[in-house]
């Protein structure tokens, strides 16, 4: 009985060990998010891109995609450049939605919609690693910045997925 107990304790400790293990090495040294551009004619305020940029950086920090999330236009050491990536993007479509349709029809009819094309490049040679396309939707009764928050979350999720599928390392 005693032996069983000791064995159980050891097994439990062994199972818990990975939790105490050091965080795995980040895939990239630095990641730089840039302000997304907008195609002409989109009814989005300049603050929207600022907010999207801030949310994207916050999501990148949370996702631990790289050792450091640097600001736009920040210098990077030559040695770190091959293991650094930049995220660029363009907002290609924005539909502001309709509250009337949302209320009368429901089932996501009349929702706001945002389409973003992103490109992840390696800093050293500007080689495109992945270029996922993101499409997010939200209720028109919410502020348009909710869409930015959702978009930032989706972008990081898609980037992680695309990088995993590609098996692209530093």
């Amino acid at each position: 009985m005693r032996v069983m107990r000791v064995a159980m304790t050891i097994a439990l400790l062994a199972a818990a060990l990975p939790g105490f293990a050091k965080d795995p090495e980040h895939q990239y040294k630095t990641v730089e998010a840039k302000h997304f551009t907008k195609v002409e004619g989109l009814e989005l305020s300049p603050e929207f891109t600022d907010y999207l940029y801030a949310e994207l950086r916050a999501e990148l920090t949370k996702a631990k995609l790289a050792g450091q999330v640097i600001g736009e236009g920040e210098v990077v050491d030559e040695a770190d450049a091959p293991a650094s990536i930049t995220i660029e993007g363009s907002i290609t479509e924005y539909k502001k939605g309709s509250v009337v349709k949302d209320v009368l029809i429901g089932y996501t009819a009349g929702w706001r919609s945002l389409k973003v094309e992103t490109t992840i490049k390696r800093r050293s040679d500007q080689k495109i690693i992945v270029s996922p396309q993101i499409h997010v939707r939200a209720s028109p009764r919410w502020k348009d910045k909710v869409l930015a928050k959702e978009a930032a979350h989706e972008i990081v999720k898609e980037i992680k997925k695309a990088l995993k599928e590609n098996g692209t390392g530093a």
Partner: protein
Amino acid sequence: MSAGKILEKLGGALFFSGMVCLAAWADDPKPKPENTVHVELTEPVKPQAFGRPLKFFVGEVTDRSGNAQPMLVLKPRGGIFLDRTPVEITREGLTNCLKSAGMLAADRESADFVLNVYLFHFGLSDSSGMDFFGKVEFAVMVKNAKTGKSQQIQAAGTSIAGLAVRKKNIQKNVLEDINKAFEDAVRSLLRGEKLRDAVKALDVPAETKAPPAEAAPPPAAEKPPAHRWN
């Protein structure tokens, strides 16, 4: 209508407007020690290395935000105030960073470059309502102290912090948010490619400043004739 009735109505209107004013006055938050936060860089930002050792001097820092209450960062729930003006915070932050890297000039005369800062935004900005959006934005006029030539560059910092219910936590999150945004903005300036490019363009060594008179291009008549192939 009798004079009594008119007076009665006037009195009622006066009472109502007085109540509205009182309510507005009561809503206006006042700075107190418990709702004041101290914004500063947690650790100095290390500026980038330039081609040669340079000294910078932080000249004028001007608030161009047009904000009537620059120290009030959040109005609801009794308000949150900064303990110093954004101008003072920015000046102190930049000075400390340059000083810690040994790049701060003692005065304007001994400096290679003078940095005049124009603050456009310092504090919180409009967010989605699900978090706090900290934003610090300024423009810096980089001026070569010797030649007088200058170039303007932009720097901005942003940060996102979670919402909170308790006032103590709101204050903590707002402080953290502004601190991060400020650090990000200073980082964007001192480690930015824009400053590197501006310094590169303005930092003209004295010996290559003006070409000598004899090095001027020869007159058109003295130009060698163009080579004709046919």
